[in-house]
């Protein structure tokens, strides 16, 4: 295997692992800040215990998110040095700003939050909780500004001498229309994921009729939180789809396995895909629905992969511009399917959570415990679509993946780091998971330290 393929595998593995932790950090930080706000406002000690109890889960997750984040920052230079040279003007700035605005804030105030319960006033401590929440979400904004340029380049010129991308309009970079969709999508994904994690642990305790008041309160808050998150993430996702049809049509067409241009286009529900012959041997869909999803009417034409490939060749020269269709088709369905189930479960959670006999709905509570896997499936498949759907581009229309890799790092070095990272990430993800289970199913303590 050559270094490019290995580097791609490494990027995929460390990034997907990293993004197990990030959305929980984003969503749970806000959840805890809300809970602690309730404590400061009401003086009710239960909310303080709640902040600490869920805070423990947060910290277990945050720690591994932080350390895997260092790899994220380093690997652009390590594995993708040609990309770093080509994109330094654009990509370095948001990354540095992310560190300056967000990483300091979340890292320093999390220290105050953990160790400051007795050193800070109630209000100072609450401020620390909110600053952690703001800091982690600011971090998401800046990394998504960087990623959005790769999806939809704006605010740049090409240096005529070196061929590198030069920043020409910082505001355009920051207010990239892609950011305006992608950030809320990620934010609400984080909120719904955190809601599901809290719901799942709460349901586990409620099934055992353990600390019912505490976990019923947690469950109710989390269900509402998850409902808001999952409905909004889906709504924004719909508009992202429409944006993609316009800006990265091959990504969307591959996610729908739409080989031929059709008018009106059906929304495929199940397909057996033959990538070699560029057709689906079986395809069951809802007539005209894809036209409606794409253009809000049942009559418009949606361009298919084969035509789009021809257009791309006309624009960029000969080459393969078709993303992995099977992966994206099923990844997209896994994401949307998980999201739909999440909306349903969160809705039932809000509805049944209002009643006091929730503890007797054992079947539902058991389903909730296992449903915590759904948002993890959704966020992983979502990122796989976002990143592999850009194929063959690392920066859409500007740089191909094959031109981005470090020329001077031999394949065996990448293979070594790939294996090392895979082992370490897997081991510590299991460790973190076990610790989260230990504390999430454990006793509530006055001092959780």
């Amino acid at each position: 295997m050559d270094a490019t393929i290995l580097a791609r595998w490494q990027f995929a593995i460390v990034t997907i692992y990293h993004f197990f932790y990030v959305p929980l950090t984003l969503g749970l930080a806000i959840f805890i800040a809300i809970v602690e706000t309730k404590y400061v406002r009401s003086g009710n000690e239960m909310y303080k215990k709640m902040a600490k109890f869920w805070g423990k889960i947060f910290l277990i997750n945050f720690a591994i998110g932080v350390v895997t984040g260092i790899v994220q920052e380093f690997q652009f230079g390590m594995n993708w040095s040609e990309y770093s040279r080509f994109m330094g003007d654009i990509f370095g700035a948001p990354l540095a700003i992310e560190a300056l605005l967000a990483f300091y804030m979340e890292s320093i105030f999390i220290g105050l939050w953990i160790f400051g319960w007795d050193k800070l006033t109630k209000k100072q401590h609450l401020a620390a909780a909110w600053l952690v929440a703001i800091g982690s979400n600011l971090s998401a904004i800046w990394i998504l500004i960087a990623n959005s340029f790769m999806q939809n380049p704006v605010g740049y010129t090409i240096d005529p001498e070196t061929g590198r991308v030069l920043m020409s309009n910082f505001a355009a970079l920051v207010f990239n229309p892609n950011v305006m969709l992608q950030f809320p999508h990620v934010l609400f994904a984080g909120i719904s994921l955190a809601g599901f994690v809290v719901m799942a642990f709460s349901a586990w305790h409620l099934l055992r009729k353990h600390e019912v008041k505490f976990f019923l309160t947690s469950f109710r808050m989390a269900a509402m939180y998850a409902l808001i998150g999952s409905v909004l993430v889906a709504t924004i996702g719909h508009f992202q789809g429409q944006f993609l049809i316009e800006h990265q049509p091959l990504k969307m067409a591959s996610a729908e396995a739409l080989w031929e241009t059709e008018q009106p286009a059906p929304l495929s529900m199940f397909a057996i895909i033959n990538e070699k012959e560029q057709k689906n041997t079986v395809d069951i869909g809802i007539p005209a629905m894809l036209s409606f999803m794409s253009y809000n009417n049942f009559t418009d034409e949606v361009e298919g992969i084969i035509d789009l490939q021809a257009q791309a060749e006309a624009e960029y020269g000969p080459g393969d511009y078709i993303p992995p269709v099977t992966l994206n088709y099923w990844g997209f369905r896994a994401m949307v399917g998980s999201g739909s189930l999440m909306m349903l479960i969160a809705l039932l959670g809000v509805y049944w959570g209002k009643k006091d006999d929730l503890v007797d709905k054992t079947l539902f509570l058991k389903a909730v415990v296992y449903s915590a896997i759904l948002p993890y499936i959704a966020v992983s498949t979502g990122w796989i679509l976002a990143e592999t759907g850009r194929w063959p581009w690392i920066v859409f229309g500007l740089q191909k993946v094959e031109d981005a890799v470090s020329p001077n790092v031999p394949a065996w070095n990448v293979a070594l780091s790939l294996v090392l990272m895979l082992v370490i990430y897997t081991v510590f993800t299991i460790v973190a998971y076990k610790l989260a289970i230990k504390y999430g199913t454990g006793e509530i303590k006055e001092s959780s330290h």
Partner: protein
Amino acid sequence: MDLNIIWFILVTVLFIGFFFLEGFDYGVGILMPLLSKDDSERRAVINTIGPHWDGNEVWMITAGGALFAAFPHVYATLFSGFYLALVLMLVALILRGLAFEYRSLRDDPVWRNRWDWAIFGGSLVPALLWGVTVGNLMRGFAIDADMNYWGGLIPLLNPYSLLAGLVFVALFTAHGANFLALKLEGALAERARKFGFQAWMAATVLAVLFLIWTFFATDIMVQGFIFALLAAVALLAAGWYAKQGNDKLAFVMTSLTVVFTTIMVFAGLFPRILISSLDAAYTLDIYNASASPYALKVMTIVAAIFVPVVLIYQIWTYKVFSGRIKADPETLIY
């Protein structure tokens, strides 16, 4: 002064912050298993940096990010060229960060013992590797006309750079011991002073050797001599104050040693950043490796606003957690 120079200074400042803060952090991590005799002593040592280590580490992240933003070719050349060293460092930093947070989550001596070694190794390895990296920066390495280094790990582990690595380890250990002497109480603080003095002696001997070698093997002293001198004076003063039992000034002096050493390196390099040992024309400097003037301008405005803000709240954190920590299981935060 043009923006390229401003960014060279800013990168220097970020590395000063990184080596100053992570310097004692790494030192504390190296000393933790050596100083402490039981679990609450180990916890006390960890808690001296417990609220701070993550914020301190962000200085490294920001320095890396600033290199990427201001001098993308430096970031690309250095990080791809030092690939295996960085892989090793990343593994160490992953272990170390997790250890601080996960160690106390199980009340199991085997579990805690494993994480203790992670803290030790996770602090020792980055300290050593950063020293090796700095040594190679001072000495130059084989960068070709396309700004790529193809030599792999072995040539980077040359005796000069390994000595630089040892200087970093010894200096950071002494620096960390001085920090612990300030932050701990009683017998534990006493042991920190004892270890600190030994580390200081090692650092002094190694530093003298290193400075002499630097004088003959590199051109860093041409512009960096005055800072080398200041670093040496501060290091000697650190030992003197440590002998006097003045914890505060001993710590101030190892801090100054780290600060002046970092300035020595960057002043010696200026305006170069990565020296090519193949041909001076291949050297990456603040002009041929930089981002565009527009990007530098944007980043200058951002840095001018937010670096002071960060400094204010980070200093405030140290104020909140000022005072000595007692190795008493009743009061320790786990």
